[in-house]
Structure formats: C-alpha cells, structure tokens
C-alpha cells in the first residue's frame, strides 16, 4: 500500500495557506445536507463537533461519559503552548516548529508540525474569546510560564487547570450548538464498530451504556477524537474509562495504525502506593519550573530529606544537563529518574521515587508566589499522600501518560479509510517519538477548531455519496459482530474478573514495553500475550446482562482490544531497532546513556495493517523528509 501523506511542498511558511486554497469548499447552503459523526468530546472531538456545527453541517456526537464535559482532556494541568512571543524572548512560529520537531526526536512530519505552530496563535485568541480565564498579569495582559524542552516562555495557563478550562470552552461551544439543534448528542454511548461501505467510512455501531441497545448511525464522514491508549498499561495517568476500542476497531476495519510503540512516560507522577492502586496521578510538569529534582548522592541513604545536607544531594538533572537543567524534555527526565532508582538511590518506601523539592523556590520567591502558581497541585499532592509539600519535598516517579502513536492520517487528518478522520491524541501525527509539555492541548484544539473543519469540506465536496440506510448488509454485519462479542463475554462465565486480567497485561507491558525496552523482553512479551489473551476469552467472568448499565461488560470489551493492541505495540517496538524519544531500546544508546537514533534505517512512520487476530500484521512505511530542521543528536546539555 502506497501511503500518500498529501503534505504540500514548497516554502514551509506558506504550505498550509496554499493547501487550504486548493481544498474544495461546500457551499453554505449545502452544508446542512451533510451529516458528520464525531466520536469523543475532548479538546479535539468537542472543538471539532462545535466548529462543524457552526459551519452548518449536521453533527451527531458521541461520548461514553455521562456528559461531554467529562472527557479526559479535562485533567490536563500545566498549559498550552503558543508562539505569541508576548515576552519578547525570541519566540516565533519557526522556533515552536523547531522545538517540536526536535523534541519529537525527528519522527514527525515537518509540514504538520509547522501548521500546528502557526495555528497555536489562533487557538489562544479563540479560547480568550470564549471566556477561558487564562492567568493574567496585573496589567491585564496574558501571563506565560516556561515548560520542558523549550528555552522561551510560551505556555499559557489557567492555574493548574488549563485542560479543564479549555475543555469547558469547547464544551460550552458544543452545548450552544446542541441547544441550537445543530448537534445531536449521545452521551453514555460507546462506539463499538466502524461501518465501511464501498470502501468509505459511512457510520458507526454503538452500544447504549444504559439500555444495552446496539444501534447504528450513518453519516457522510466519521471523525474519531477518542484519545490515546495509555490504559494498555492498566496503571497510567489516563482516566479509568479511557480506551482504544474506537481506534482499534477502525484499525480492524482497515485503518492503518502508526508508531504504536511511541508512548510517553511522564516524569512527575505520584508514586504507586500499593497493589490496590487503580490509577496514577500526574503532578504538572510546570512544577519543574521551580522545583529541583534530586536523590541522595549515596545508595541506601534513608535519612529524611531535610536531614540530608546540600553536599550529599545529587541534583542529577542540573548536573547532567546544565543548560536545560530541571526542564529537560519528558523522556530524558523519566529515563534519568529510572536510572538513579536502578542504582539504588531512589527514595520512599518502595525506592521507586525521586524528590521534587521547592525549598529553594520558597526561599527565593516566598510561599505566596508558590501558592499562587501551584496551590491546587500542592493541595492535590497533600490530599493523596497526606504529606505537605511546603515542608517536605514531593516524591515523584514516572508513569505512562500519553501515546504519540495512533491511527495513521495524512495532512488532511484522514486515515487510510476514505471518510474516516482522526484527530487529537487518537492520531499519530504531530509529536513524533516524544511530545513536549503543553503541546497536547495545542494539537487537540488545532485539529478540532482549525484543521479538520477546513479539510473535511474537500472530501465532502469531491465525493459522490450513494444513499445508504440501516438495512445495508455492512450495517447488519457490524451489528452482528458487536452483538456476538458482547454475547461471548457474558456467556464465558469464567473465574477471573476483567480487572485482574487487565492488571496482568499492564504489568507485562510496563516491564517489557515501558520506559526502556530490549529485544529479549519484547520477544518474551510477544510470546506471553497470545496465551494470556486466549485465557481471558476462556476464563473471564462478566456478571449481569447486556440490557442494563453493566460496567464490567464495558471494561471487558475494552480490555479485549488492549490485548490485541499490546501485541502490536511490542512488535512495533521490536521492529524499531533504534532509540528515539519515548522509545528507548537498551541496545541502542550513546556511550553516555542517551537515546541513539538510526536515521539511515528508521526515519519513517511505521504504519501497520491488520491481517486478523494472531496473524502477523503488514508494515507500511511513510518515509520522513527533513528539509528545515536537520536531524541531529538531541542535546539538552
């Protein structure tokens, strides 16, 4: 299969403008004749649904939560990047573009990233217009902070709740369209299959989570904004409900899935406290602006942190990376935390934690400044751990946070199935092998507000749609498929709960396909997963019926998909014989332990084609060219 990225050439500054001019438009009066399905209501899905409805399209929008406002974008804390250069510190669209390509370790498509940097400007304007209460200076102007992987201050924020406020902006825009009758909203409804007719995405099959009713919905195009797959690992910073079912079932219908092994480990999360742990909580990366990361200089030092004198502390990030210090990118910070813990210098009961210390910042700036910047984060930390971070340093450890991989899309955000668009974290496009902090919000909103509403018109205007109805054989087939999976899960009546299988899979993935990987471990995982998956299908215990709210049944379907996806992740990680960004293969590192890329052989996006469960998938490569930012060993020293 030839992967045509449809990325325009020529001067990078004008690519998006020229491309946009060449896209076909739908006449305003004709827009209402088209129906678009949007699945997911996070920053990407919510903003897309609202914007498409404003344009006049008929929108049907779906989410599994009880309200579109609950999508997990809401939990993003730190901020959103934009190259406004309000601080005269040398920022520009080009610099944001450069930082993002470099931060992604040269595994993203240049044209996409440049567009993202350009649109970052419009996003801030849009959100201010909606009433997002961004932090302000006393003058009334917008305030900024700095974030990992950048040497300029370009992150806009609303206390430690930026994601919440941006999402509520998109949610309110969406509700306005629901009120106006432009959007038909289906909360507590889960997409369980994609309907493909004559090679085009024409609808979805869903389960009503309250009544269990399996239904199909038809449209002229389908947009997935269903987020990432970090919950493969069971323990992650994702919401409990976050899942890969929508993208995985689209993948099984023919959409290629790219770079599944590119997962991001966030360096600053609250450490695991016990076996019952149900999820991990992130402490915003913005804390690294003022917090200093350290561990005791010598092994097995169990003194309380306050009793360890300055000379016996190792501020290892400042020591190893003097120019970026505590603000190195996430992958670098995470790997270093793991390395010092592996050396036996970790702190806390488990030895799997490092300190994030605010003592010096409090001395320098005063407690009130720290309170204002991070008050809610400090409270959250204290609520969870029972410890006061104003008095003792926080203990943090890396955790799975974001997945850069996802369904392959071209420059128009269309997958390999015509009419199926994928936006936000669900696609693979803009972050390469590592996402920089405060860039996920930017990408979700760029895709939803500004890219998709433009590109989708080209598809709608240039396609002749055959009339289809719910009696079409493809619709029947999808419904039969969904019903049989549900039935099988309920009829298995095995011995172990869904969660127990999910935990087991998660542990295996964290050990062998987590923060660092090697061929042997990946082969072991690949050898173990199929057996575990078969056992799951033979032995899972799902009580209750389909015709009611059945949370075990919902989870079971999602975990079944995680089993299949996990195998692909390991395979992708094994195939990629290099280290890049979040994908760290132990065999491929520089003498001083940094990731060693192999541009000669692996400068491509790996897009996988599904060939049946248990059958080896086919690999298709989209070669990546770098005309502007020349690949170099990333250095943050």
């Amino acid at each position, binding site marked *: 299969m030839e992967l045509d990225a449809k990325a325009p050439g020529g001067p990078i500054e004008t690519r998006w403008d020229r491309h946009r001019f060449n896209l076909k438009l739908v006449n305003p009066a004709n827009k209402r004749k088209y129906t678009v399905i949007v699945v997911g209501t996070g920053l990407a899905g919510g903003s897309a649904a609202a914007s498409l409805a404003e344009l006049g399209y008929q929108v049907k929008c779906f989410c599994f939560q009880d309200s579109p*406002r609950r999508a997990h974008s809401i*939990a993003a804390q730190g901020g959103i990047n934009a190259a406004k250069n309000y601080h005269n510190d040398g920022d520009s669209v080009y610099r944001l573009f450069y930082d993002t390509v470099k931060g992604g370790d040269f595994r993203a498509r240049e044209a996409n990233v440049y567009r993202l940097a350009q649109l970052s400007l419009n996003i801030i304007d849009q959100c201010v217009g909606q009433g997002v209460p961004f932090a302000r200076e006393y003058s009334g102007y917008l305030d900024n902070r700095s974030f990992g992987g950048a040497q300029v201050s370009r992150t806009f924020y609303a206390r430690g709740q930026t994601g919440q406020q941006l999402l509520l902006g998109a949610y309110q825009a969406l*509700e306005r369209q629901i009120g106006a009758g432009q959007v038909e909203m289906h909360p507590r409804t889960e997409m369980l299959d994609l309907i493909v007719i004559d090679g085009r995405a024409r609808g979805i099959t869903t389960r009503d989570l309250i009544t269990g009713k399996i239904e199909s919905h038809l449209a002229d195009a389908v947009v997935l904004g269903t987020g990432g797959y970090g919950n493969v690992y069971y323990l992650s910073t994702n*919401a409990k409900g976050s899942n890969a079912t929508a993208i995985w079932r689209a993948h099984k219908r023919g959409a290629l899935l790219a770079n599944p092994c590119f997962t991001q480990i966030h360096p600053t999360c609250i450490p695991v406290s016990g076996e019952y742990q149900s999820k991990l*909580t992130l402490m915003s990366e913005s804390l690294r602006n003022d917090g200093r990361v350290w561990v005791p200089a010598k092994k097995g030092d169990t003194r309380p942190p306050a009793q360890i004198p300055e000379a016996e502390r190792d501020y290892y990030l400042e020591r190893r990376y003097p120019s970026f210090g505590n603000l190195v990118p996430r992958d670098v910070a995470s790997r270093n935390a793991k390395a010092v813990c592996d050396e036996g210098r970790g702190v806390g009961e488990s030895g799997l934690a490092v300190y994030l210390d605010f003592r010096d910042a409090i001395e320098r700036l005063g407690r009130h400044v720290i309170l204002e910047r991070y008050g809610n984060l400090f409270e959250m930390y204290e*609520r969870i751990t029972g410890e006061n971070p104003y008095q003792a340093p926080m203990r943090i450890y890396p955790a799975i946070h974001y997945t850069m991989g996802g369904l392959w899309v071209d420059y128009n955000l269309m997958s390999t199935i015509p009419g199926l668009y994928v936006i936000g974290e669900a696609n693979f496009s803009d972050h390469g092998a590592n996402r920089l902090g405060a860039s996920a919000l930017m990408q979700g909103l760029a895709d939803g507000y500004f890219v998709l509403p433009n590109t989708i018109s080209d598809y709608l205007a240039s396609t002749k749609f055959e009339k289809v109805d719910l009696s079409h054989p493809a619709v029947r087939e999808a419904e039969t498929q969904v019903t049989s999976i549900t039935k099988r899960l309920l009829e298995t009546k095995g011995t172990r709960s869904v969660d127990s299988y999910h935990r087991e899979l998660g542990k295996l993935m964290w050990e062998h396909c987590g923060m660092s990987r090697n061929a042997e471990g990946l082969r072991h995982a690949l050898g173990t997963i199929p057996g575990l998956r078969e056992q799951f299908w033979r032995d899972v215990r799902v009580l209750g019926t389909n015709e009611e709210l059945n949370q075990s049944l919902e989870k079971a379907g999602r975990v079944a998909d995680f089993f299949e996806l996990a195998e692909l992740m390991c395979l992708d990680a094994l195939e990629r014989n290099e280290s890049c960004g979040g994908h760290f293969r132990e065999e491929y590192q520089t003498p001083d332990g940094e990731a060693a890329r192999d541009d000669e052989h692996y400068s491509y996006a790996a897009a996988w084609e599904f060939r049946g469960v248990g059958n080896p998938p086919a690999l298709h490569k989209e070669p990546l060219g770098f005309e502007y930012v020349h690949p170099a060993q990333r250095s943050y020293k």
Partner: protein
Amino acid sequence: MRIILHIWRQRNAGEKGRIVRYEVPDVNREMSFLEMLDVLNESLIAKGEEPVAFDHDCREGICGMCGCMVNGVAHGPARGTTLCQLHMRHFKDGDELYLEPWRARAFPLVKDLVVDRSAFDRIIAAGGFISVATGSPADGNAILVPKENADSAMDAAACIGCGACVAMCPNASASLFMAAKIAHLGLLPQGQPERERRAVAMVAQARQELFGSCTNIGECEAVCPKEIKLEVIARMNRDFLRAKLTGRGDTLRDDEAEVAESKPLAGAQR
C-alpha cells in the same frame, strides 16, 4: 482496618431499591475511597454477586463524574474533596458508612449509585456560553482583563459539574452550579454582551428541569469539592434582577422563550 458499608442497591429506575450491608476487611489507609469500592467489587465478583455500579472516570478530582452521599454528606467528610480524592486515612477501623446516590428529582436514578445529570448539560446549552464562532476573535491580548477579575472568574470556573450542590440542598436547587457559570462569564469583558440573556435563559431552563429554588441555606458551599463560594449566587441574582428591571433579559426572542418554557432542550433527552 475493617470498614462496614451500607450501600444503596437498585437495579434501575423502575425497580425498588434497598440498602445492603457489606464488609471490607483489610482496608489500607493509603487507599482512595473508590479503590476501596474496587476491592469490594472484586470480592463480589469472586463470589458471583454483581458489583456495585458507581460513576467515576479521572480519579483526580477534576472530571466531576464521581460522587455519592457518605453518611448523608455529598462526597464524604473531607472539605474541598471529591469522592475519588477522599482517602481512607480519614476513617478508622470499624467505621460504618452509608452510601447513597445523589437524590433529586432532576437527577433520575440510573443504577445503584449512578444518576442521570444531563439536566446540567441542558442548563449550559440554554445559555452557559459566549456566542463566538470559531475563528472570529481578535488577538488574545486585545482584551485586557484585570487580574482580580481573571482570578475571581477562575475561582467560579473551577466548577466540575458533579452535582454535589444539588444533592446536598434541601430544595435540590442548582443555583450554585448555574451561578458559578454566570459569575465566571459575567466577570470577563467577553461575557458582557450576553450577560442578562444568559441569566434569564439558564434560570428558565433550571425551572424546566424541576430544580428547586435557592433559600440561602449554604449546604452547597459547604460540600462543594471546588469550594465555589455562595457569593456567585448573589451575582446571579443581581444579573437576573437587572435583566428583569431593564428588560434586557427579554432578548430571548418570542419563539425561543416559548421553547424554553414548554420543553427541555433537544439532544440529551433520556
């Protein structure tokens, strides 16, 4: 430690519910409240009994999906804390806890501890927004917002829409929820053009949804996990009154007003 739970079990809105007693031995102090319920559910599944249904998602106190009454208090005993962020170190060995769903006419029960809060969405759809089409705003710094206003707007905007205020209010009023949005948008320059209209439309929708009226009791403020202050309700009342006195709130066109009066908004009707 050992915790005794008395949990409201109800298969669906049509069937009768009842309180069922469960014991959870070996509760760890570091567990969150929901992790204790996970442990209970795992043990129920092992025994072949159906697990307790409860809403939850982010488990970091921000999505607003979780919540139930714990011994008559919404989200339990810790101030400014959602149920998912409540940790078992607040309890002691042998404690008996009664868990019940939010009870309000406007929040019909779905199952066990799960209720339907879509009425909140319809209130936002009625007017809880600034009408700005994608692409129209000018530069972000073209609108200056005094820091105090931005901060107060953020205080109000912190609402997570969990419904604890309604559950705790003897009148089942949604005033704190509505007023938080009205105050957030009304404190910002961008929110001024629709200020009166917003208050009138949202209040009308809340009446449609059968939420009660506010009688200044303050239970809502006491249990709000985001510590939204009662003062926002004063702001809402002022906006509403001003709309009525100046006639500006009647900018609802006749046909729109009719819709608001006669039926809930289209969309999430269940």
